[in-house]
């Protein structure tokens, strides 16, 4: 490299510094405009025993007050009926408006919430700050910035976060990593001109070694920043999917393949199987009655291509399983998916017509019995899979919750117990169990009853004393 003369370097430096100062001056204005696309959302999760508050950050995506929250903002196992009192806060303002939960989109994982009229007019969709055609792809070293929000006690006061792009990876979506924290998780990321370039993700764990006089270091601990993140999805992974607003709160229709327990095939294994350079996902189990089973897939098949396209190679290789899952979630029930699988030395092409996801645990019917002290839940497909039993033989109900110090808990009933018999009579269905348990619950003369439960393949006879 040629040495640069001192004087010339100094001149360059002065010009650059002047340019920066001039452009830096507009950051407050850019932030003031863009903060209107940012909200905080508070909601309660109401269960038999508690009411828990959660606060998440969201980004406004349209003129109807629709807000997207990141996948982790709401536990996907909680029935939507237990999610209550959504409130939408505008940053820096103690007042708030009501929100309505619209459901989760399986493909993006986003939760959708809609703000009420009162607050809607104060919001601006983030799409207004997106490039007219193609979202600009930031290059390494580009300045990127975003917004963080202080906690509720500080009225979610917005603040500036800025950094530079350090790395772009496929995880499996194109993900930017900035040098430092660049936005609150779920909040937009902009380039120097204020154009949308991405959406903040949950922060990845950073390994640190704890070191002190007494503790000479050791295995690293992972610290996760829950308020700010340096990771963001590039805008090209966000903008095309903003229209995936669920039509129903349960997020249906949900496409289903039924190839369970996907595990990545690592590079050494690919070489060993003479698939050098290929990516693959091992299917642990093909579920009973699933589209995968009907397509002729077998346990331990290795998926190597979808619709003729080889699975991409990811670093680390484990992202290939998420890639396959997303390929299913992206589609709709009834769509045909062509899967190329490796079985031993054979290479097979399977045509799977995706089905409807069987009833999920969060959709199962449930009923709480206060005197006995537990919640019975409908036995659904996933319960049969978990218990390695055939779906067709699966009568009975599942214990969803046991309240401490109630007859049920004293008798030794545990969550996830599978109730097979009540008073020596087999339970036929959820409705049957509810009838039997209600009769016991509301019979003041009833002093005891007996349950037969299945637990990890064994059974246990439990004696529930009501007095």
């Amino acid at each position, binding site marked *: 490299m040629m040495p640069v003369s001192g004087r010339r370097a100094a001149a360059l430096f002065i010009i650059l510094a002047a340019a920066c100062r001039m452009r830096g001056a507009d950051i407050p204005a850019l932030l003031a405009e863009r903060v209107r696309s940012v909200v905080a959302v508070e909601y309660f999760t109401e269960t038999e025993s508690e009411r828990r508050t959660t606060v998440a950050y969201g980004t406004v995506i349209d003129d109807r007050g629709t807000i997207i929250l990141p996948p982790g903002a709401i536990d996907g196992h909680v029935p939507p009926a237990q999610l209550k009192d959504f409130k939408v806060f505008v940053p820096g303002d103690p007042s708030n408006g009501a929100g309505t939960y619209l459901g989760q989109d399986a493909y993006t994982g986003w939760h959708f919430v809609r703000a009420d009229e009162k607050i809607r007019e104060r919001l601006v969709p983030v799409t207004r700050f997106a490039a007219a055609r193609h979202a600009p792809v930031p290059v390494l070293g580009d300045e990127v910035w975003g917004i963080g929000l202080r906690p509720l006690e500080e009225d979610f006061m917005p603040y500036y976060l800025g950094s530079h792009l350090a790395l772009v990876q496929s995880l499996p979506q194109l993900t930017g990593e900035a040098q430092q924290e660049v936005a609150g998780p779920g909040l937009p990321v902009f380039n120097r001109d204020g154009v949308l370039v991405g959406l903040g993700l949950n922060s990845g764990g950073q390994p640190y070694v704890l070191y002190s006089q007494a503790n000479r270091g050791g295995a690293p601990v992972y610290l996760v920043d829950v308020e700010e993140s340096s990771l963001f999805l590039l805008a090209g992974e966000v903008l095309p999917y903003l229209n995936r607003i669920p039509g129903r709160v349960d997020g249906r229709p949900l496409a289903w393949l039924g190839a369970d327990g996907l595990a990545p095939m690592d590079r050494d294994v690919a070489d060993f199987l003479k698939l050098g350079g290929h990516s693959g996902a*091992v299917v642990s189990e093909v579920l009973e009655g699933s589209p995968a089973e009907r397509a002729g897939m077998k*346990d331990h098949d290795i998926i190597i291509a979808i619709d003729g396209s080889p699975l991409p190679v990811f670093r680390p290789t484990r992202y290939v399983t998420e890639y396959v899952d997303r390929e299913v979630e992206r589609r709709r029930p009834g769509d045909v998916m062509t899967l190329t699988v490796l079985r031993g030395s054979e290479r097979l092409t399977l045509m799977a017509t995706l089905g409807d996801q069987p009833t999920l645990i969060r959709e199962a019917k449930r009923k709480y019995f206060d005197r006995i002290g537990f919640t019975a839940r409908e036995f659904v497909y996933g319960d049969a899979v978990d218990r390695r039993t055939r779906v067709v033989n699966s009568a009975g109900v599942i214990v969803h919750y046991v309240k401490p110090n109630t007859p049920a808990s004293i008798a030794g009933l545990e969550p996830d117990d599978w109730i097979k018999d009540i008073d*020596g009579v087999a339970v036929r269905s959820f409705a049957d169990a509810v009838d039997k348990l209600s009769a016991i619950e509301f019979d003041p003369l009833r002093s005891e009853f007996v349950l037969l439960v299945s637990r990890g*393949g*064994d059974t246990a*006879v439990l004696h529930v004393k009501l007095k």
Partner: protein
Amino acid sequence: MGRGFNQLLDSVVRIDVREVDYDGGARRFQASIGSGVLLSSDGLVLTNAHVASPRAVEITITLASLERVGARLVGWDHWTDLALLRLDMGEVRRRRLKLTHGEFGDSDRLFPGETVYAVGTPFGLTRTVTRGIISNSNRYFEDDNGVNGYETGAFNTWLQTDAAINPGNSGGPLVTEDGRIVGITSRGYLGANNLGFAIPANVAKGIVAGLVQTGTITRSYVGIVPKALQDFEGFYALALDTGMLIDSVDPGSPAARAGLLGGDVLLAINGRKVDGRFPEQLPPIQNLIASQPVGSVLVLTLKRGTRVSDASVVTERLESSMGEESVLDAWGLSVRKVSRTFARENQLPDDTGVLVIGIHPGFPADAAGIQAGDLVTKINEKPLTSIDVVNQAQAAYAAKPGPTLLETVRDRRVSLYILKP
């Protein structure tokens, strides 16, 4: 103290054991100390199964005369926590060592409050005598991995004593004032004050006889998990002191094949009425089944709802959930064979495979990402039906190292790994 007691003191020995430890993915040895009692002039020593097991590679006995003699394992029985050793009699004769042996008493005649003495080697303090009483002569205690990972206690009750029992007392005798052996000290509650437990002599007598004869104790298995009927009599419309509740029936067991279900009440075995009202009454009933020859036909009288009926079951051999262990040094992997019992308890489809119990850091298995708790089901596409298959695969690798494909299951997720030099 009388002559009998002094003779007993002369029959108590210290046992130093060096045993192989498979846990770390490499062959390691560890030493431990226990106690024992000489039972015969031909050198039989009784101790605990958790003192001397088939993992022992070197056993040294210190006699009352402080002379040290080698010994070998005759056999062990983890269910009762007993092991039988034999002194190197050639050496005993060559060195003209004098042996004194103890005599069993009748443990059924013990009563709570009776004075007993524990003799042994607590913390290596050879020939320590402590005194206490029988606190309870019929204690129910069962543990699924109480003897170095093996099951114990399902077929006998225990003596409880307040005589001080410390680590190293294990395998020593519990004796009455006349020096008769009424129990073999086995375990105590850590952190508790003087809660010690011993195997009753009347149980030990039978085990010793069996181990002398064949080196092993074979038991019958039908696959029922019992539960005390206590409080359930009203629900099942039974007279008091009648029947034993079946809490669970092991899938695939003889009882399951005969159609037994959890919630059935067992009224009689081969016409002999059973009474399992209290937990203390369960071990004798279990032992009644276990003591039948393997392959016996048992007629079980059962009550289900209001109906009473008989079911015939053919007993199988009782198997521990702990399978054979091996160290695969070239891979830095220690494994345990999946037994039928382990497969059933963990809801595995069959007993194919070995469980990874230890990893040697930096060796091929560790480098590939295999972890303790993984189940290895195939090596180079070959199902692991026995520990020999695994050992052979490793030997082939050691002779000519090259990439080797392992299929593993963890939490039902199948993964593939390559072991490479």
